[in-house]
């Protein structure tokens, strides 16, 4: 359904993405793992045109765009069929929780305010925050803000949601509530690409796991295979270090 081909991106002289290709099927959850600086965030940002790739193609069902040369209209079309969940939430600071969720519907999609309000409240109820509908983000905990961030994405009925480390800015005790909401999104059958360092979660929720390093896809496959029998030495080293690190951290 979503396919990315040959994505390349450099910052100044530094090659951050070197020919990344990836497939996501309908309703599929793809997790991207990899060490810091491997280009995971940059990849997601290129897909939503928050960063301009130097080359590559993106196909979303019938919509086909050249990442480097996409015109304004294609960029908008792509953004209106996808959604993004940010590491630091990025809720609109000048809007209440309800208005945050309504904004894309009303302004981008032209849904009537009454209809949008109804949908927004459904989405807020779905993430368990209807009672916070009238609050501004500055009054909400990180976990609550991120759940609203997910509601804001889901309410747009996107074909795929990009999530960049959705829980890594959260206090450990708030991670669970957000992961639960993401599980719900998966259950709804909305496709997702998730960059995460939550290994247990990635293993549980993903249909497909991708390991990146140095701007390349090193290895990909079903979660059981990647986590239990990684083929590549680099994947093994990363997982070993990561799993022991995080064990040490949490025990």
């Amino acid at each position: 359904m979503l396919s990315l081909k040959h994505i390349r991106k450099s910052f100044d002289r530094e090659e951050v993405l070197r020919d990344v290709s990836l497939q996501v099927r309908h309703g599929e959850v793809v997790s991207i793992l990899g060490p810091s600086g491997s280009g995971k965030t940059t990849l997601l940002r290129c897909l939503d045109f928050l960063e301009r790739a130097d080359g590559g193609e993106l196909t979303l069902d019938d919509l086909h765009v050249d990442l480097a040369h996409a015109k304004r209209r294609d960029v908008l079309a792509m953004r209106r069929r996808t959604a993004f969940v940010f590491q630091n939430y990025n809720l609109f600071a000048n809007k209440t929780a309800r208005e945050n969720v309504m904004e894309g519907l009303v302004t981008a999609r032209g849904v009537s305010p009454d209809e949008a309000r109804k949908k927004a409240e459904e989405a807020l109820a779905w993430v368990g925050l209807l009672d916070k509908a009238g609050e501004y983000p500055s009054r909400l905990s990180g976990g609550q803000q991120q759940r609203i961030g997910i509601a804001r994405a889901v309410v747009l009925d996107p074909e795929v949601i990009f999530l960049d480390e959705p829980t890594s800015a959260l206090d450990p005790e708030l991670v669970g509530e957000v992961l639960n909401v993401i599980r719900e999104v998966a259950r709804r059958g909305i496709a997702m690409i998730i960059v995460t360092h939550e290994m247990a979660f990635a293993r549980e929720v993903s249909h497909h796991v991708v390991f990146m390093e140095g701007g390349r896809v090193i290895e990909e496959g079903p979660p059981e295979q990647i986590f239990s029998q990684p083929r590549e030495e680099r994947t093994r080293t990363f997982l070993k270090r990561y799993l022991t690190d995080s064990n040490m951290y949490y025990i």
Partner: protein
Amino acid sequence: MEALFSWQRFWADVPLLLPYFLVTVKIVFWGIGVGLVLGIVLACLRLRHLAWLEPILHIYVSFMRGTPMLVQLLIIFYGLPLVLAAVGVQEAVRWDKMVFVYAAFALNETAFLSEIFRSAILAVPAGQLEAAYAVGLTRWQAYRRIVLPQAWRIALPGFGADFIALFHGTSLAFLVGVIDIMGRAQALGASTHHALEGYLFVALLFIVCSLGLRVGFNYLDRRLAYGR
């Protein structure tokens, strides 16, 4: 010998001076009104770093912020009609002279407010714009609905200070012959040989208005706190 100051003359001056306050208010109105619109447009343009336009805008802002208001007022008041006539707008020399006073203050405000808004827009976290793009907003929608309202909130204290400074600065207009409240007080003083009462009234009026403006801006500041 007459007393230097009398309350009787003070109260007698009030109705003679007050109508001229309207002149001050009009200068502030046009200065802020036009300056605000053009200032925001200028700030947005400058943030896009347009290759050929940016040096011109930069020089414009530096000039307006770097030279005394009086110099600008004199140049625009006497020079702009001639410039307009030279480029084919002959009737400009017959326009109401006040237009050029408004223009001088508006052009000056444009520069100052553009800097206030430029730094305010830069102070809005980049993630706000990105989130707006991500939910499908166009650049214009994202600025109008997300970035500018937040920038406005950040700019408010600076804007308030600028507003009050303009209000005080309008008294310069009487140096090109505009009879505003300041000019009227001086004329009254010259004809009656009692200037103090008039000046005191002007001073009090300005103090009251400044305080009123400050209270107004503080109220706005709290209204726009977005929960913080």
